[in-house]
Structure formats: structure tokens, C-alpha cells
């Protein structure tokens, strides 16, 4: 048929016979990482539960190596597919090793006794995820983040070909988020492990995924490689963001801008203004800024937070009318602040703006004066 490892065709999912999302389709190759993104309650978990057979499909098929997953022998499927689910498991007197060892279930005999080989695999999985030192601790006494990593170790010990994870990084700090995803990436590229997961961290989803599926409403949204999905403005519409903004290129989120007539004009560039922009947002002071090139480091943040941005096209000198616009903006503002420490050949005009502000008596020297 085709060389896709895992295929979903015309799948309709939902609870109790009521369809939630219709006509879901995606195909992934061995060793690819597919990430589901979408707002809370959009149905990411429902899709994942349907794929792994927790929920009955209302229509369509899910196939693994061209074999329908609901027709596979349960024991065979368990050797191919492992899961990490959301929601805490309530264990009783189980150590972390015990939890990881349950991953060996499909491979052990009638009574579930672990062989030396099984024990070695469990140990390796724990080493890989760096949870070995938790070994004999009671699972209930470790932190939520540690639990998530232990559940990953458990899934790895199951030696699956495909791993399905529902929001696996929600409790992890940034170090472990990166570590967690790099483990998945390594296993995907080196061991040809196929990964399907849902993530809330869009910036990380953009970086780690080979393909992204956007989930919202009756039908799924965009599906494809991250560069096709994360185009400017799409995330805001997918998540229906009204307060604040998301920059698809940098994966950066900003809080909503302060509305009103700008009180302060910020002369910035090259990343020198970003911190001040955010401080002003926190202090609820409306401001405008310029002159910034559209490829400037400060530009996306300025676009998100400033009331007006006096901008110039990338790689052009600052033109006369842009300069005039900036001057007018200074006239409208009460004060002017300059974040630039020095000026170069190309931004002479910004230096001139400083002088202009000084001549108007609006220029503020030193840091933090604007806080008044």
C-alpha cells in the first residue's frame, strides 16, 4: 500500500457515540514525531485515547504497518505500542522500580516474574531518563515531575515501536522538558521510535516535531510540518488568543499591550529595548517606539507591546518620511528614553531623535526614570 508506518484515516472520535471531532487523517513514517496542539478541551486527549484503543472509534481506521490496530492481538499490540497518559496513577506501596518494571508486562511469563534480562532493561530505561536514584522510593512520595519521568522510563522499558504520550511535559521544569524531548528525539532518530504526543508548549512543539496536527472544534485544523503550520497569526486564531499575542517565529508569547495614548517614546534597537518594553507593560504605561527595522531583535516584542511602532523596511537606510513620523511621535509623547548606548553609521537618525528630544526638554537620562 504505502510506506507509512502509522496511518489514521477518516477517523471520527467522541464519547458515548457522540462525535466530537470528525474526519481526522494523518500518516507518519517510522521514526517521525507527530505533535498534537490545540486549546484546552479541544479533543487532543480524545484523539490520543482513540488511537491507543481506550475509546472506540466512531468511524474510520487506525493502522499500524497496514494492520488495523483494533484487530491486533492485545499482547502483540502491547509489544509495539506504549503509552504515557495524563492524570496521576494511584499506586499502593509500589516503589519507582516496581512502576517501571510494569513496562515489561508483555514480555514476562504467566506469573509475571522478571528475568535478569528484564531487570537489565528496566535499569537501562531508568538510567536513560535519569531516575535511577529514585529506584527504591515509594512512587507516591516523589514529585509530579519525577513521576512523569518515571512513566516515560516505564514506557521505554516496554520497548515499543511507537510511543503515545498525552501532555508528557506538563509538570517538568525547563531543564527536564528539554531533556525529555531530546530523549524522544534521540530515540526517534536513532532507534526509529515513532512518537505521537500532545504538547502545550508551542515553542517546543515547533522545534521537536516532524509533523504537527492542530486540533480545534469539529474538524482538525492544519496538519503538516511545523514550518507550514506555524505561520504568522495562525496560533492566535487556533487558540483564539485575545489577551496578548504569540510570535510564531520565535515561539515567544507576550501579555496584552497597554492601550491608550502613548506617554513615552522609546528609542531602541538590537534587543536593547525588549526588557524596557516588558517593564512598561507591567507598569501599565502605554508607549510607542522606534525607529526599528522590521528585522530588528526588538521588533516582534515592540509589535506585541507598543501602541505604535515607527518602523523601517529591513536592510534600508532610515528614510526621510520615517524620520519625520518619529519626530511627530515624540511631539505627542511626554517623555523620551533612549536604550541605545552608542550609534552607528546606519542609525544616525536615532541619534538625531535623541538630540531632538533633548531640545524639546523631553529626554530622560539614566535608568528607571520612566517609572514615575
Amino acid at each position, binding site marked *: 500500500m504505502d510506506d507509512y508506518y502509522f496511518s489514521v484515516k477518516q477517523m471520527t472520535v467522541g464519547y458515548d457515540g457522540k462525535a466530537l471531532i470528525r474526519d481526522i487523517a494523518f500518516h507518519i513514517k517510522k521514526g517521525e514525531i507527530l505533535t498534537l496542539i490545540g486549546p484546552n478541551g479541544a479533543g487532543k486527549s480524545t484523539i490520543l485515547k482513540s488511537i491507543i484503543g481506550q475509546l472506540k472509534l466512531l468511524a474510520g481506521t487506525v493502522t499500524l504497518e497496514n494492520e488495523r490496530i483494533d484487530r491486533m492481538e492485545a499482547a502483540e499490540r502491547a509489544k509495539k505500542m506504549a*503509552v504515557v*497518559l495524563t492524570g496521576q496513577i*494511584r499506586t499502593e506501596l509500589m516503589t519507582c522500580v516496581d512502576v517501571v518494571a510494569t513496562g515489561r*508486562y508483555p514480555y514476562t511469563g504467566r506469573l509475571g516474574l522478571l528475568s535478569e534480562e528484564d531487570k537489565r532493561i528496566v535499569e537501562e530505561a531508568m538510567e536513560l531518563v535519569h531516575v535511577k536514584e529514585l529506584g*527504591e522510593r515509594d512512587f507516591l512520595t516523589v514529585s509530579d515531575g519525577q513521576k512523569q519521568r518515571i512513566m516515560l522510563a516505564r514506557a521505554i522499558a516496554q520497548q515499543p515501536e511507537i510511543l503515545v504520550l498525552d501532555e508528557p511535559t506538563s509538570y517538568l521544569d525547563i531543564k527536564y522538558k528539554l531533556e525529555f524531548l531530546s530523549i524522544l528525539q534521540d530515540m526517534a532518530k536513532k532507534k526509529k521510535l515513532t512518537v505521537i504526543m500532545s504538547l502545550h508548549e508551542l515553542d517546543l512543539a515547533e522545534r521537536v516535531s516532524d509533523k504537527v496536527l492542530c486540533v480545534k472544534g469539529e474538524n482538525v485544523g492544519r496538519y503538516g510540518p511545523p514550518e507550514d503550520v506555524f505561520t504568522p497569526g495562525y496560533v492566535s486564531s487556533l487558540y483564539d488568543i485575545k489577551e496578548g499575542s504569540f510570535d510564531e517565529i520565535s515561539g515567544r508569547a507576550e501579555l496584552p499591550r497597554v492601550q491608550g495614548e502613548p506617554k513615552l517614546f522609546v528609542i531602541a534597537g538590537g534587543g536593547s529595548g525588549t526588557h524596557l518594553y516588558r517593564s512598561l507593560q507591567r507598569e501599565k504605561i502605554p508607549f510607542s517606539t522606534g525607529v526599528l527595522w522590521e528585522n530588528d531583535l526588538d521588533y516582534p516584542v515592540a509589535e506585541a507591546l507598543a501602541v505604535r511602532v515607527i518602523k523601517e523596511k529591513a536592510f534600508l537606510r532610515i528614510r526621510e518620511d520615517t524620520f519625520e513620523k518619529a519626530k511627530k511621535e515624540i511631539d505627542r509623547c511626554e517623555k523620551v528614553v533612549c536604550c541605545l548606548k552608542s550609534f552607528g553609521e546606519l542609525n544616525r537618525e536615532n541619534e538625531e531623535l535623541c538630540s531632538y528630544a533633548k531640545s524639546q526638554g523631553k529626554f530622560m537620562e539614566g535608568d528607571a526614570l520612566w517609572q514615575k
Partner: protein
Amino acid sequence: MRHLTICSGWNKKMRYIFLFVFLLVLMLLLFGLAICIGSVRVPPAEVLKVLTGKETEETVKNIIWQIRFPRALAAIILGGALALSGYLLQTFFHNPIAGPFVLGISSGAKLVVALVMVFFIGNAGKVSSFLLILAAFAGAMLAMGFVLLISKKLRQMSMLVVSGVMIGYICSAITDFVVTFAEDADIVNLHNWSMGSFSGISWANVAVMTVVVFLTAFLIFLLSKPIGAYQLGEAYAKNMGVNIRLFRILLVLLSSILSACVTAFAGPVSFVGIAVPQLIKNLFHTAKPILMIPACFLGGGVCCLLCDLIARTLFAPTELSISTVTAIFGAPVVIYVMIRQKKENIE
């Protein structure tokens, strides 16, 4: 004991072996006491004479061989069955205070057995052991059915227990009603039985319960692998390849058979089903089914031997009902478990 839990596999193994030997020795000791102690005190030497078939007084021989031996054996077998049934129910409902008594299963069994007994005492006289077990099983399944129906509606586990207790009360009320109005000479026996007691058990009874309980326990032991998977929750168990539907049905059936068998012979026995699995889990410091299944069985046996011994000797010749004694031991354990659970939830 705390430090023992944080050490290597070898030490763990030694600990488990030690605990199993400990339980076995305790059981033998209590068994010996149960044979020797009673309204007639029989020294061990005399017991040995009876066992080896040497000349002894006929009454002593009867007391030892016809009364005390079957009674003590029944306490072990039925106690074990009760603890095992409790362990299964706790696993099934993911609830540490589940047990055949609190969920009303024992009372359901009691009700149907009482009905059958009253009917047969009125008409035919004798009731066979198997018929009693069947009746108890029917009653247990009926109560279990109600509990399952309620558990589908109620996600909260404490409420499940409360509704189980309510089912128990309804069944007990109807049983009392039946017993009160069944005027007959045998009513005293019926009354004793409905309060829970190991008295009046014959060798034939012991034979039947041995077959039923050991067969069921063996099947449960074979299920220890999926039980272990089920402890992580249904979703993970399913991913590991457990046939959840079949597994749940088996769990319900096997635990009902065990509690039905107990009720058929000894009436309802409270708290052993909850308390013993809890004590054993904490003693072994694990909930692994492959260890828990035999250990709970031994623990239940030890517990019921001890409680029966106390029940019949404390105020001899008056006998206490077995549930009176088990409640005194068991209820504090349940309260302790609940308090500890609460703590864990807060943490």
C-alpha cells in the same frame, strides 16, 4: 523495620521468606492452641494420642476429632478466603477499605442462605453444603450487582462504601425478619449462624470448603500478573494487553465465590476482609499480588483462628459471635487506614 525497605533485592527476598515462615509458625501455634483449649482442656500429649489412634476417652476423642479439628481447619480456610476476597475487592475498586462485609456482599449471601434454610427446615429438613454455597453465591452476586450499579453512578469511593453498608443493612433486616418468623426448633442454630460463627462445622463441610476455596485461590494466583497490571489503573492495564472486560468479570466472580463460601458455612464475618489485606500489605511493605495472594490467605487464617479462639474461650461456656471479636480487632485497623489515606491526599 523502615530501613529494611530501602535495601537490595536479596534482603527483600530474605524479608519475605522470614515473614512467610513467621505466619506459618504463628498459624501452627494457634492451631495447636485451638485444639487444646476449650471448655475441656486437653494436654498436647492427649491430642497426640487421639491423632495416633491410641486408647483415649471417647468424649475427649470426639471433642478433639469431631469438633475442634474441623472447626480450626474451617477457621483457617474461611479466614483465608475472606482475606483474599477482601484483597480482590480492594484491587477491583482501587479502594483500601473495600471488603465483602462493608460492601454488603456477605449480607446479600446471608439473606439468600437464610431464605433457603428456612424453606428447607420447614420442608425437607437437611440442606446440603453445596446448595448452601450456591444460595450464598446467588446472594453475593445479587449484592455485588447492586454495588457495581452504584459504583457506575458514584465516582467517590467513600460513598460506594456507604451504599454498600446500606445494602448490608437492608439484607440484614430482611434476614432478621425471616429468622424471627421462622418458628422452629432449629431456629437457635439459624440465629447463631446469622450472627457469624465457626461452630457446628463438620468434616463434610470442611471437605467441601477445601475444594471450593483452594480451587478458587489457585485461579486467583494465576491471575496475579493481570492484577499487578490493574494496580496501575485500567488505562495502563489495557495498554499492557490485559483484557479488561474479562478480567473484571473474573475478579467479581472469584471474590464473590470466596465470600459466598464463607457466608454459607460461618455466616457473615466482619472486618477480616478489609483489615487483614491492609495489615499484610504493610507488614510486607508491598502490594505485589504474587506475594499478597498467599500472604493474605495465611494472614486471614491466622486472624480467624485467633478470633475464634477468643470468641469461644473468653466468656466460656458462652460463645461470642465471631464478628464481635473481629470487629474489635478490625475496626481500628480500618480507621487507621482511613486516617493515613487522608494524610497522603493532603500531602
